[in-house]
């Protein structure tokens, strides 16, 4: 009897304990620090944004945000484990705590920010939905696409914009829904659909991978606002702040002309904001730098700029005009260069 009883009690305990574990969660920063590396939800593979290179090392401007956060937390940008997520599972993966943050060309919308329990912390690429067609079709505007077959990646804002665009213009289309970027490429290049639609950045990235990129044109119409940015789980504002300011540090870095090459020289700069950013100046005369507010070391932003570089470096390295992706800065230039990239002051 006692044996059965103790068995029952221990069973009860395990159930109780396991539900307690499932229910608890401490601060994400502590969790990440204890683990020793950052888990970052990335794209399954989108050239220029998040894709492993020939050596299996992840690269791209979305990936650089993950690296910046790792640099800020650990002082080592390589302490990241990338978890490739499809557009369909990305939110579930983040919500369930399988990753600490998501940085994979995800559009910031009201519903995702509020109802899905996410927290968007900024925008690292201002995008908009576009259309790509084979040049041989002779189409020059999206308004000539009545009756076309359109390849779309499911689980995105894209399909809703597409539905809106065609119905607003009184046109019909055949939707060919595909799961991933590479499936979309396969279906589009095989001619299963006439048009491939997704965020313009994604179109450029795909086109760069085609055997003959010049045989495809991206139409001039941009039919939506797609601010793409990193997100974290709702409810841990301290962690959200770290990710937000890691991105901001990269943008301020560009604004102040701090690059990975000159970051050490810039420590002798006369600009107080640069000195605050690089952890040289202290908060008032407390003796501590600007890391304390984020629970990070004072050289966190220095580490980001030294190891990852500023926003412009990241952009030029992965998607700029000198890469196969070949995207102009456009909206993504700094506010003082005609774009809308703008970070709050570092003070």
């Amino acid at each position: 009897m006692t044996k059965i009883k103790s068995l029952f009690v221990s069973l009860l305990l395990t159930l109780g304990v396991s539900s307690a574990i499932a229910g608890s969660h401490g601060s994400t920063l502590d969790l990440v620090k204890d683990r020793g590396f950052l888990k970052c939800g990335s794209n399954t593979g989108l050239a220029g944004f998040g894709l492993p290179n020939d050596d299996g090392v992840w690269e791209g401007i979305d990936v650089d945000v993950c690296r910046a956060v790792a640099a800020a937390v650990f002082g080592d940008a390589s302490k990241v484990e990338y978890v490739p997520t499809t557009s369909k599972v990305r939110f579930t993966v983040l919500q369930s705590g399988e990753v600490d943050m998501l940085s994979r060309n995800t559009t910031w919308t009201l519903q995702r920010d509020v109802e899905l329990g996410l927290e968007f912390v900024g925008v690292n690429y201002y995008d908009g939905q576009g259309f790509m067609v084979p040049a041989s079709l002779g189409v020059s505007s999206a308004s000539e696409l009545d009756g076309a077959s359109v390849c779309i990646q499911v689980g995105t804002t894209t399909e809703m914009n597409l539905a809106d665009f065609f119905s607003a213009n009184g046109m019909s289309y055949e939707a060919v829904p595909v799961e991933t970027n590479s499936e979309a490429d396969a279906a589009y290049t095989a001619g299963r659909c006439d048009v491939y639609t997704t965020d313009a950045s994604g179109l450029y990235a795909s086109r760069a991978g085609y055997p003959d990129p010049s045989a495809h044109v991206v139409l001039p119409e941009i039919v939506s606002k797609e601010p793409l940015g990193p997100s974290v789980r709702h409810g841990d504002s301290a962690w959200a702040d770290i990710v937000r300011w890691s991105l901001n540090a990269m943008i301020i870095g560009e604004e102040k002309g701090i690059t990975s090459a000159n970051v050490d020289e810039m420590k002798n700069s006369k600009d107080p904001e640069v000195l605050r950013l690089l952890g040289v100046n202290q908060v008032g005369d407390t003796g501590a730098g600007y890391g304390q507010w984020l629970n990070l070391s004072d050289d966190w932003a220095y580490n980001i700029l030294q190891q990852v570089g500023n926003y412009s470096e990241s952009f030029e390295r992965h998607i700029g005009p000198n890469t196969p992706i070949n995207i102009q800065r456009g909206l993504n230039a700094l506010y003082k260069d005609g774009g809308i990239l703008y970070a709050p002051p570092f003070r």
Partner: protein
Amino acid sequence: MTSNPLRKLLFDEKIRSIWIQALIVGLFAFLVYTVSQTTAYNLEKRGIGTGFEFLQMSAGYDISFSLIDFTSKDTHLRAYFVGVLNTLLVSVTGIFLATILGFLVGVIRLSSNWLFRNIAYVYVEFTRNVPVLLQIILWYSILIHLPKVKQAVQFLEYFYLTNRGLYSPSPIFLEGFRFVAWSFVIAIIFTSFLKKYLKKKQNITGNQYPIFYINSAIIIFTPILIFYIMGMPMEFSHPVIKGFNFQGGMVLRPEFMGMLLGLSIYTAAFISETVRSGIMAVSKGQREASQALGLKSNFIMRLIIIPQALRVIIPPLTSQYLNLTKNSSLGIAIGYSDLVHGFGGISLNQTGKAIEIMLIVMVTYLIMSLTISLLMNIYNRTVQFKGNA
């Protein structure tokens, strides 16, 4: 003796089994309760909304492959029905094709022709040992590399084969066609009575009647006759290239064909083995006895072997049907708009209601599977031995 009730609790088999069962049920209920409470708690803590109101919200996306009208302004609930119908469409047609192909191959596997037998053997071993997902993707890849729309392969004058599907004329029924349809139904009912009558007559007189040919002729020619009498109340809409695509007519999309081919060819391999085992389970003496009676070989098959084989075939056949239905959820790999792809995928992503939607989808598959089992069990009862022979 005073400890008797306690001892009874432990050693009386009947009482012991009652409280052990009660305990297990209690534990299970507790487990379910804990899991659901924990989930609800975590969802709330993470600020994720729950509930089924989203079903009434407009879906916001289009589904082009649909048996009922669907636009982006329709609700998620309607998207659910579109998905259910598409799943049923590919499952039912798949089961139909797989059964025919499976029976054929199963019989060929037992044929005395060396070449046929071995072709069937290679087919069975190849298809059932390669994952069905790969086969579906293979078929789809082949289909989308067919000629493009502008280079469509035209055959039988009005049919076009392209990488966007097989286009065919679609019939448009005019006023008066319903008489043709009704005559078809009436012909079927009439022939079933005729069959009974002729069988009876055969039993009494011993004269054989070509029942099959007579009935086929009635079922085919009555509607045709009515069709001409009514002045041919039907037109065809022909597919014509207009802009990017063919307009008009009907189309079988490559996503659907890929699924249908992949599923039915895969499942047919299993069915053929079931059929073969069923036929082999009929004792040799049955065939020899019927040969001794002088029955023709196709009669032996139809009247002696198959009815007995069916008893062995039906139960495993049921589970093949269930497998095919569940495998239809692989449509997600090639963008076939089934229940999992549309409602369970796109709606899930747009609304973020993972738990609610997965529950609905799972219950739906459960209902479909149980319905198939039920129908097959009813059929199984009709082919089993009656009485205690």
